[in-house]
């Protein structure tokens, strides 16, 4: 099974590198057919991507990630980097262009991308698991974001609530003084949620009897 996955990894890497080289240096691969977009919306979108340089960015990701797949370096990262680009291609091929051949190729590419990611599932453990702590956080109440700003019953101590309130005040001040117009207002409204949660947690901390 491992050999089959290695072969699929090399196949996907080769396809990504070849399509990228075909984009950047078409004279090298002049014998390969060039993808043509027949649907007006698809053609307009791809032209906009091409003229803006966004297509070059996508092809650059194909090139680097494809090279990583071929050389067996940081393969889980390369697959994760390829996925959004290939999903975008799938959306355009399937829902906008709608041509059978292009759609099948896009589905196969995403399926291959997904299958390989499944093969490297243990490498995505940290990304997929819940309850991860950020740098500097600890699992105790008041020592992580969730216990202060998400869970009103987090039992955070008073000092931790004060620290959280200062951070929240800084974020509120940022949206009040720095961000202009409706962007500032909508930001403040959004911050009402952690404000209420922290207020409830703080009241509970203040009224809690020392045990």
């Amino acid at each position, binding site marked *: 099974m491992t050999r089959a996955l290695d072969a699929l990894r090399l196949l996907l890497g080769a396809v990504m590198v070849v399509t990228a080289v075909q984009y950047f240096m078409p004279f090298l691969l002049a014998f390969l057919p060039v993808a043509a977009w027949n649907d007006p919306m698809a053609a307009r979108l791809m032209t906009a991507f091409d003229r803006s340089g966004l297509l070059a960015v996508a092809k650059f990701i194909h090139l680097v990630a494809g090279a990583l797949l071929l050389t067996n370096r940081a393969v*889980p990262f390369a697959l994760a980097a390829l996925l959004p680009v290939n999903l975008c291609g799938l959306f355009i091929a399937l829902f906008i262009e709608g041509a059978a051949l292009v759609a099948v190729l896009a589905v196969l590419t995403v399926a291959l991308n997904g299958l390989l990611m499944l093969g490297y*599932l243990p490498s995505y453990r940290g990304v997929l698991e819940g309850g991860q702590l950020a*740098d500097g*956080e600890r699992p105790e109440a008041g020592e992580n974001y*969730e216990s202060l700003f998400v869970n009103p019953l987090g039992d955070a101590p008073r000092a931790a609530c004060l620290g959280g309130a200062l951070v929240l005040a800084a*974020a509120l001040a940022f949206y009040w003084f720095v961000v202009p117009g409706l962007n500032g207002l909508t*930001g403040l409204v959004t911050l009402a949620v952690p404000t209420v949660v922290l207020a409830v947690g703080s009241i509970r901390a203040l009224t809690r009897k020392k045990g």
Partner: protein
Amino acid sequence: MKYAVWFVRLVYAAWMIPAGLNHFIRLYPQPIGNQPLSIEVFTALLDSGLFTLVKAVELLAGLAVLFGFRLPLMLLAVLPVSFTVWYWDTELQGWWTGSAVYGWAVLSCNLLLCLAYWPSYRAMFASDARAQLPSPGTAPPIVREMEAQP
């Protein structure tokens, strides 16, 4: 360090949730750009339906940042969106414009938060990772552990 992370989380969530929601419920006028190329890209995204996908990811990621749901995963999922926002705001709108400030802010917050959760991503960069599909009837350790979580 944790206070800086909390500040960035709050600021980022308070930006991404209204920005994502604005496509589905109009909160403020959606900027469409003021350069020919940025307008062309924006209208093409909007008319093709891809913009809806982008805004849905933005909204989900904002909610994940605010409520701490699968944060490392959602930060990774929204990274291409943040990059595109940055590219549109800087390269297409102009490097020395007000838009560029927003572009830099969005991408910087996303990258800083990814950095804060770096241990979650470290295994993805291992050069000795081996591929192995689970055989029928047996789930790999990661799946078993995730299922066992309360």
